């Protein structure tokens, strides 16, 4: 049974411009998905709908077969979803450990250490960490929340090639080792190569790309 499911989802802005048209699809745990598409194609919109940050104009998003609006979008975001952003989105007045505690249902320190942060780094202000380290903290926060779905919007967009490769590997490990459903919106072909399934949005429609 799919973890997340899109059923005939359409989305249009208030001005009437349709971004997504009758999109359907299923996402499973233990897999890493990459969503590709040109700028403005609706990748981030699709991620927002999956993450309960917005609601479709038509159709529905299901989690474990239940419409995510049934128990409320806040519940969906709090219990089912972890979001990772291009700009890391850490709380600047907290240390890495405290950032992870924001959502933590698991012990923060071992996760941070496993993701490569040293002991002295995890109690330092997050703004004193490098971009790669900050993104690791964001991933640690996602993992520590124990949410089954990780949605990542251009997670390697601000990173150099080596660090991007490391982060992609961690996301892939999250899917394969921790059994998460990882959905990555990206422009990067390198990231897409690491995904188990590559989806492409074209003219409002979602299609699986042959690898």
């Amino acid at each position: 049974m799919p973890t997340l499911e899109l059923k005939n989802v359409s989305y249009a802005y208030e001005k009437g411009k349709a971004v997504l048209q009758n999109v359907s699809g299923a996402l499973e745990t233990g897999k890493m998905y990459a969503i590709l598409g040109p700028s403005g194609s609706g990748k981030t919109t699709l991620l927002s709908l999956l993450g309960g940050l917005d609601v479709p104009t038509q159709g529905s998003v299901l989690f474990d077969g239940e419409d995510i609006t049934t128990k409320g979008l806040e519940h969906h975001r709090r219990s089912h979803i972890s979001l990772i952003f291009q700009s890391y989105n850490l709380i600047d007045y907290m240390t890495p450990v405290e950032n992870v505690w924001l959502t933590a249902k698991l012990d923060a320190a071992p996760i941070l250490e496993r993701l490569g942060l040293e002991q002295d780094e995890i109690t330092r202000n997050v703004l004193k960490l490098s971009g790669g380290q900050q993104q690791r903290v964001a991933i640690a926060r996602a993992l520590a929340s124990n949410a089954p779905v990780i949605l990542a919007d251009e997670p390697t967009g601000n990173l150099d090639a080596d660090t991007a490769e490391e982060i992609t590997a961690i996301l892939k490990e999250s899917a394969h080792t921790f059994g998460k459903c990882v959905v990555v919106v990206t422009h990067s072909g390198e990231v897409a190569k690491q995904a188990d399934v590559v989806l492409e949005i074209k003219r409002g429609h979602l299609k699986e790309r042959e690898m």
Partner: protein
Amino acid sequence: MSIFKRAFLYVTRKRGKTILLFAILLIMATFVLTGLSIWKASEAAQLDLRQSLGGKFDVFVDWSNSPYVVKEPVKDEVDEETGKTSSSFLMYSTVQFTPENITAIKGVSGVKYCSARQDNLLPFDGLSLFPGTISTDAKYQGYTKVLGVCNTEDDELFTTGTLTLAEGRHISDNDTHVAIISQDLAERNELKIGDYLTAHRYSVEDQGFTGPEIRVQIIGLFTPHAVEQFGETVTTYDKIQNRVFVDLQTSKEFDGGEINYGFSALHVTIDDPQDMARVVAEVKALPGIDWKAFTVEVDNETYENAAAPLATLNELVVTLLVVIIVVSAIILALILTLWTKTRIHEIGVFLSVGIRKSAIIGQYLIEVLLIAVLAFGLSYFTSNTIAGQIGNHLLEQSMQTEPEDDNDVVSVAASVEIGADNLVQKPLPTENGIQVSVGLDNFAQLYLIGLAIVIVAVSTSSITVMRLKPREILSKMS
């Protein structure tokens, strides 16, 4: 992570903002607490003033309009020097106040004292008087003023401290043929308590006190607070040391006729001048007093003049308080609005991890309250330092803005003249300024007002951002 932990982390890590907010809240709290303290002190001073001054009103025969006023011609007198004959009239009211009326008025709630007097000028046998500073008609030499009262304890000369009972006891309602004289007069005449004074009933035929002998026993001696100053003019019979108080029965006997069976005027002192209208209305509603015969004259001017600066101060403080509260709320809301806009990134993160908007606003509220608790606490000391000075400065301003009056009651004192008797001047509570101190009640009020200001400011500042959808916030972030 709990809402309190997040708030605590923000307050302790964002020290610059915390210090700035602390300073703003401290200034705001100091002003509010100072205003509240001055307000309380002003209210207390007004209450003190009311209790110190009391209120007064006189009830007397309405000589112009009463249907009970009788005007009778009396025997013509021939002036011995000029040989001219002069006619005179006796005017009196057939309806007078009785001791029962006085008792009834004393029973009205808020009435402190009710006193009445019958005045007579008469001579006592063999009584040597202190001479006055101006000469009187030969006919009145050896005469002194005799006041007939129900009891001396309620008489204004005693209640104001103008006279003090030094020895013996007061005249009370059931006494007959008793007197109280001054200690000086007693010494001058080698009299003591228990001795008798002798006078005579008034004879209409002789137009003098040549009637049957009346003896009164001295039961008390008084001392005056002050006698007249050098250079002051006073007749022998008006000298305070020559004054004789007797009971009403004796006074009526001295008078000789049946005309003056009671009192033609009453003097009523009430506890609280603010209650004047109610007390007068209740007195007027008493049974057994025929109000066609009497009229009431209220004397609240002393209180009103003295209270005016305090009332002005009160209005000023209340206005300032309102302004301070509104301005504080606006300033705080503006600052928090600016800060909330800079925290949009944080709001987006919180929303993305499923923290409710209400919990985010709650965190902001707790942050401000954490700082406010400390700032409000410190304002106790800052307010205590400045409240007294500001309060008295405002009072001075209020006094300067009052129109000048002939009776400068605030700077001089409450002074009321009745006849030739200058009543003792009591210092007014406002003479030395008002005593302003920050109390626990003010502190509680500050926390309530502060809480309201903070809630309004935080709610107002959060509206703009909180109305946005999570995705809109995240779009703004990127």
